[in-house]
């Protein structure tokens, strides 16, 4: 029984084996639905090309978005935050040490006063 026990927090429990069982049941249901699908299709016609909202498919490799352009909307959306945090990451060594001294100073004030 120790091998199958759950993880108890004070306000709930988590049993990953029950989760795996639930996922297996769901996968079985998915497979049964998939088996009832259409199994005859013609290769090479429009039935096998990807659907890009009616646009033409570009050449091989041209529609792989490189890593710098992923999540562009997210980085543009919180540009105010990034414009303040990223310049703080200068590469200068003495700035790194300055931050340690600042944190020590602030913690000294906090701990001595409060």
């Amino acid at each position, binding site marked *: 029984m120790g091998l199958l026990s759950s993880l108890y927090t004070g306000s709930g429990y988590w049993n990953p084996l029950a989760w795996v069982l639930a996922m297996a049941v769901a996968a079985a249901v998915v497979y049964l639905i998939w088996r009832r699908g259409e199994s005859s299709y013609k290769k090479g016609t429009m039935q096998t090309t990807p659907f890009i909202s009616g646009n033409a498919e570009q050449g091989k490799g041209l529609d792989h978005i490189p890593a710098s352009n992923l999540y562009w909307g997210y980085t543009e959306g919180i540009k105010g935050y990034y414009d303040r945090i990223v310049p703080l990451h*200068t590469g200068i060594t003495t700035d790194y040490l300055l931050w340690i*001294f600042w944190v020590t100073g602030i913690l000294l004030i906090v701990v001595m006063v409060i």
Partner: protein
Amino acid sequence: MLWNLPYIVVVLLAIIGLATILLKRNLIKIFLGVSILTSAVNLFIIVLGYRENSIAPIYTYAPSLNMALPTPQALCLTSIVIGVATSALMLSFAVIIHRYYGTVNVDEIRELKE
């Protein structure tokens, strides 16, 4: 007031070391600042072991039994050795950085940033 003189010297050395680390731009001078800060802390540890009118902690032919504590002296020796190893490694890093970057100015050694 006179008995606190070593502690005042410790604080002065620490401030000089900190100022050198934060204000100087040459890497070698920053290493000297680190060395001064290490010396300040070593001095602090040794001063902790002093007892009034005490002699060196050696039992052979001891004129009295009022001896200064030997433990801080051992701590300080260990710390000096660690400081030597650290300085050697930092200086060798500075030599290699100068070979590849051509400079030892902290503001210009920032290839890795943000």
